[in-house]
């Protein structure tokens, strides 16, 4: 399975994401500069965290309008998996690939620590290796992670089982304790917590590794069937 880690100017978790899939999970992966991107040969696209374009205008807003987004949309429409983490999630929201917006954290401060999350839907291609309802620990590091959507959208998310991760102790004011959501087609996941920062025990948690393993195993199953 081959991963593309998209690098925008100001991305800063790109190398961490690359390290996780390439060195820890042993997959093929490339850091793909946003201007030189042909995503056709990649099986999955990873949008890493950071401050793309300095968070100017709004977090993720400028990156969501960059040229590479056209290919990312095509990748999504083809049903291939896309994972956006932190700023990557913000970009997916700004691009309209996921519903809702991000507000500044309730207390207005950037915060960085481990948070307890519940796996609210373990039937997505990203979460099959978790047990339903299982509490896992992943780091958060953001100033604008306060997820907001209107009531209609929230009830649709709930009804369609699109809420994938919820905070056990909501740190930022997110609606419905949302930490991560998936699109209705089930192939685009956005989440504020950082699974790529939790793939080695040495770093305090390896609860994130199952997310990548889920993705790889489901892709292998699908690929084996299709082949």
């Amino acid at each position: 399975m081959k991963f593309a880690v998209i690098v925008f100017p100001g991305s800063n978790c790109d190398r961490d994401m690359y390290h996780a899939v390439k060195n820890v999970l042993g997959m093929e992966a490339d850091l793909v500069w946003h201007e030189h991107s042909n995503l056709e040969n990649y099986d999955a696209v990873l949008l890493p965290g950071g401050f793309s374009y300095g968070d100017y205008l709004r977090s993720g807003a400028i990156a969501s309008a960059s040229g590479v987004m056209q290919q990312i949309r095509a990748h999504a429409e083809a049903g291939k998996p896309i994972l956006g983490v932190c700023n990557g999630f913000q970009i997916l929201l700004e691009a309209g690939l996921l519903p809702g917006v991000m507000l500044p954290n309730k207390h207005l401060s950037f915060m960085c620590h481990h948070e307890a999350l519940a796996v609210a839907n373990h039937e997505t291609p990203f979460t099959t290796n978790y047990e339903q309802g299982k509490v896992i620990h992943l780091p958060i590091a953001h100033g604008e992670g306060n997820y907001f959507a209107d009531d209609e959208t929230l009830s649709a998310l709930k009804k369609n089982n699109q809420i994938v991760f919820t905070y056990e102790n909501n740190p930022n004011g997110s609606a419905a304790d949302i930490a991560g959501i998936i699109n209705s087609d089930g192939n685009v996941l956005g989440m504020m917590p950082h699974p790529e920062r939790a793939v080695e025990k040495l770093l305090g948690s390896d609860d994130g590794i199952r997310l990548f393993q889920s993705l790889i195993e489901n892709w292998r199953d699908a690929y084996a069937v299709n082949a």
Partner: protein
Amino acid sequence: MLLTHDINPEKVEQEKLYRGMGLSDDEFKKIKDILQRRPNFTEAGIFSVMWSEHCSYKTSKPLLKRFPSYGLNVLQGPGEGAGVIDIGDGQAVVFKVESHNHPSAVEPYHGAATGVGGILRDVFSMGARPIALMNSLRFGKLTSGRTKYLFQEVVHGIAGYGNCVGVPTVGGEVQFDDSYEENPLVNAMCVGLIDHEDIQKGIASGVGNTVIYAGAPTGRDGIHGATFASVDLSDESGEDRPSVQVGDPFMEKLLIEACLEVIHSDALVGMQDMGAAGLTSSASEMASKAGTGIVMNLDFVPQREADMNPYELMLSESQERMLLVVKQGREQEIIDVFEKYGLQAVAVGEVTEEKSFLLKQHGEVVAHLPVDALAEDAPVYHMPAKEAAYVKAFQQMENTIPYVADYGAMLKQLLQQPTIASKECVYDQYDSMVQTNSIVPPGSDSAVIRIKGMDKALAITTDCNSRYIYIDPETGGKIAVAEAARNIVCSGARPLGLTDGLNFGNPTNPEVFWQMQQSVEGMSEAARILETPVVSGNVSLYNQSNGKSIFPTLVVGMVGLIESLEHLTPNFFQAPGDLIYVIGETKAEFGGSELQNVVEGTYQGKAPFIDLQVEAERQKQLFTAIRQDLVQSAHDLAEGGLGVALAESVFNDKGLGLEADIFGNPTTALFSETQSRFLVTVKPHQQRQFEAAVTEACQIGTVTDHGKFLIRANDETLIDEDVQILHNLWEGAIPCLLK
């Protein structure tokens, strides 16, 4: 300030305009002697920043020579952007500390943010990838509105910059004392990792090579920042706000990636950050180091504002700028790399054989100066020193033991002192995990950064107890180094070397200069005996306002090497049943202690005694025991003594408690700040081996699983508290004060 460029040289002299730039009459005369003519306005400005204390170290240079700065592993000592120490496997660690005190006093957010930006550039201009940031902060008491504002905005500024550039801020220290009320200190440290073959130097060698300006355009911000940093703060300092720079961390992030790509090109000859004194210092220093000269055409310098005159262009301290020297004919390769990141890179000049600094604008020569006169012929002042009268009086005082009525209540009070209390509300705002190498997060004696692909890690700490330096500068200087080394050793690392951030008052005051002399002497001796060479550093003087000087504050940023991850040792107690030991005897030493501050409201008397040979021997024994896997946890005893260290050791959500016995005077046993002591835990089955390895260790108790903090003195219960209650008080103290 006058910014008109057509003021003629006669006017500069007659109206003594150079004084407004910070030059003395004698210095102006020296400039005339060097040039054999009067300098024009721009030239006087260039001399004034290059000869400012910030750039020339003119009063501190004679003292800095005392530092031991060489060692077998030192690849680069003081003189370049940052110091470099070999860590084996063809890798090296690059580090430096820098102050941004005066800007932070006037404009705390941007002052602190640009302090981070500046120290990052010092490290990546060497070719190293920045892997960690630390900071050392000092504020007044956290009770005044202004101090709360300064504290919160400085933290926001550090977070705003560090988080965006993607370099983890992994720790640091904060102290609160009256002496910093008007003049807070913001010292930032950056650590980088580099392969030996990538080490760059800021040199302009090769006549005919091209000088390239890269990064942000030049604006009118930070003009004369280096001079502003070299005078006392006053009530009018707010008017100097234009001297404070504004940073753009997004630009810096792009600059980091571009510079780290450019270093792999053999077209690059040298690279230097445009820091203090901007284009002036980077260009003239690069030429001076290479024994060459530089000619620059200022028309080509990217400019953010219209009609900038040469004085403004040369003295601006706009951020996120780099100066490169590139092989002639290969400019485009370098420019292409910067353009990939959307950054401007422009050829602005050329390296010349004649050792002069020649600047042109609109076809005219606007400055023509001998390069060495700027960098190397700066005046050196040997200031008069006089033993501070208060220190003499303190030395006469007997060691007394402050009165403590209720030990449990006193422990609680100490745990809530802002200097001791948890700083979680500070470091929670920093991205401490990006780059996924932070294996010991903020909140320990040292932060630890693993090196990917290797079985090794770096331990990093910043330390300085300025109260000891205030009451006894020489002893305090020794303690600052010793404490940093203890913190490094506790994590299982061998100390490699240090960077110093020297912060003092006005050196023209003989008592302040004496503090400088004595404390630097103490620090040098400790660095020699503990084998931690001083490889880089920074001096910040004139840290006083309205005649009141700060406590002399010698921040020690130290880096150590953990040679195998198996040696990594936590600060906190690990498991019930482990035996608790104190290494080193305890004496009644309360001068400058937290207890003295709480009980008597002042710092006075003798600083704790330190014998550096004893210190070195204990560190060596503990380090050896750690490497033999005999130690479960190790923690340095510092502010608040054993009582506070014991409490901190069980604040880790494991539900642990402790039972310990102390003997002799309980106030001394629990709260004295005697130096060269450690708190360690050991598995019962390794007791004999441990006691054989560490000769001065004394068992005082056991780790329990009952969540109680239980201390018996001379067989009677002295303290019996719930760990959770102590933990909550410690954790909540600073957020509570900020409300």
